[in-house]
């Protein structure tokens, strides 16, 4: 049974990792928490559902829906975050983000209805290796997660744009002085984060075969816990945190009690934060006087 739980945990952890990356990258560049991220994800999943209804092939559906999600992510930043320049910016952006989140959630309820919709883009089939059973959806989830993480690695560490992004996350003011178009980099960061979230949303929608307007909330919270756990702002941290949370949740639900399934992510996060306040991969933060 242990390996079965482990496999399930790794699959769900991959999805958390993809969502956590969106939180972590935005935090790295702007030092704000994008609370509307989970609702952008939900919107993308609904688009995927509609495209599947139109009879598009799966790969085209995923790419188009994720691109739409990326566009929505950029729009959210343009509309709700960028105009806020003065005042206690962090708090103002937070409330603005919460407003955006309410807006998107209720808009989805209005457009698509509040009931849970089944999502079966991929036909389900099971494989067995020894005692471990896994479905083809799990294999697809793991493959897509691996491909996305690889692409992200190449973009961030091997391209000029990636250098600019990392420069922004070290110090955005200095990056501006070095001739980097920071507004463009911010938009790209949001686009990449939302693109990954769109794919994650479609994957989890197919995995549980359920799409509904509030689906983003718990997924987003756990992914955020994963980002914090790994050290927010760090890409490796977000990935590691996602897998840790996924595996612990799966093992906890299997061995301790499944009714507290949603609590394990937070309990683990609190314990790790108390032991190591900057997260697993987070840089040590030194307050300067």
């Amino acid at each position, binding site marked *: 049974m242990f390996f079965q739980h482990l496999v399930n945990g790794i699959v769900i952890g991959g999805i958390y990792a993809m969502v956590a990356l969106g939180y972590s990258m935005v*935090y790295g560049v702007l030092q704000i928490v994008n609370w509307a991220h989970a609702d952008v994800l939900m919107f993308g999943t609904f688009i995927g559902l509609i495209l599947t209804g139109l009879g598009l092939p799966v790969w085209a559906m995923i790419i188009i829906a994720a691109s739409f999600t990326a566009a929505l992510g950029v729009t959210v930043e343009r*509309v709700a975050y960028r105009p806020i320049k*003065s005042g206690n910016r962090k708090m103002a952006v937070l*409330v603005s983000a*919460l407003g955006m989140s309410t807006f998107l959630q*209720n808009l989805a309820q209005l457009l698509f209805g509040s009931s849970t919709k089944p999502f079966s883009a991929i036909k389900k089939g099971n494989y067995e290796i020894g005692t471990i059973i896994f479905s083809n959806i799990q294999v697809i989830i793991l493959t897509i997660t691996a491909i996305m993480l690889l692409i992200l690695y190449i973009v961030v560490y091997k391209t000029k744009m990636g250098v600019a992004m990392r420069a922004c996350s070290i110090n955005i003011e200095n990056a501006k002085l070095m001739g980097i178009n920071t507004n463009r980099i911010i938009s790209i960061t949001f686009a990449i984060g939302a693109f990954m979230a769109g794919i994650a949303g479609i994957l989890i929608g197919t995995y549980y075969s359920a799409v509904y307007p509030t689906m983003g909330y718990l997924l987003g919270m756990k992914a955020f816990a994963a980002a914090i756990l790994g050290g927010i702002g760090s890409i490796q941290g977000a990935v590691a945190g996602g897998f840790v949370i996924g595996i612990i949740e799966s093992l906890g639900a299997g061995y301790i009690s499944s*009714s507290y399934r949603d609590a394990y992510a937070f309990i683990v996060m*609190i314990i790790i934060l108390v032991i190591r*306040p900057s997260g697993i991969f987070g840089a040590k933060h030194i307050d300067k006087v």
Partner: protein
Amino acid sequence: MSRIKELFSKYRKKVFSPRTQLIFMIILLVAAFACPLVITNKYTLHIIISCFIYACLTLSLNLIIGWSGQFSLGHVCFFGMGAYITTLLTINTGMNFFFAWIIGVIFTSAFAALLCYPTLKLRGDYIAVVTLGFGEVFRLFLTNAVDITRGPAGIPSIPSPILFGIEISGKTMFYYFALVLLLGFIVFMKRFNNSGFGMAMMTVNEDDVAAIALGLNPKRYKMAAFAIGGGMAALIGGFYAVYMGMIAPTSFSYAESIKMVSMTVLGGLASIPGSIIGAFLLTALPEALRSFSEYRMVLYGAAMVVMMIFKPDGMWSRNKRTKNEYKYVAMRGVKNGKNSAS
């Protein structure tokens, strides 16, 4: 000199003298007490009582976020804890509501201080997530520990409190009960704000290191903020339980915490009138938008974004208020010809 006068004449309309403020406050108070005599519609009264409840909650949360600068996203946990402890004590042991209430407040206060302890090492957004996580774990506990909390169905038919042989029931009675609570909270916060303790807390908020240099212990003030804020929220929780007559885990969800934080920031950090304005606005706004039926929550979200873009410091921010006070002092000086600096 004339330049200063010219400068202030621009602002004169915005500045109120203490006497005008006092008169304004008395009018508000009389209006608040006369309200149930004029409004007989039960539904409207319920909305106003909800406004009072949220105003109290916002004040208690503002103490944690605004005065002490710790970003708590799990305030609903304290609110719910107060409600549940008070109710369970009155129902299971037959204790008087007021005793149970006090026990609930003390217990929650101690719990809040304990919860704050692990977050002392953390900064900013991390505190938000730890408190949010606690709120979520608490809600799951309420839903799953069926033996203690009676699970997702909640606790129905909570008896009305009896004070000196008079049973408090009916909307009008509860209205005055809530009003007294709110006034008590306002007086408390006002005194707290002007006390040395409150100022020390704000100093810790401004700059930890400077506070240590002044001989203040930041940990003490941060924990105190949680203890006081949590206790206040529990107080309202107990009231909420007897007012509604039933409680269920769904009333203490994450969305409620988010609502309280929105009210706090929208009203203005560390501002007493701001908290009340924020709470009234965000409680009444969905009701005012009721005619748009299904569009109302969409509009509500959009309104929050727009308000933050145009008023990022909140409706009644502390900065604006202190500036106004300075303006008043300076202006009076100009009027009386005492202002020598020009």
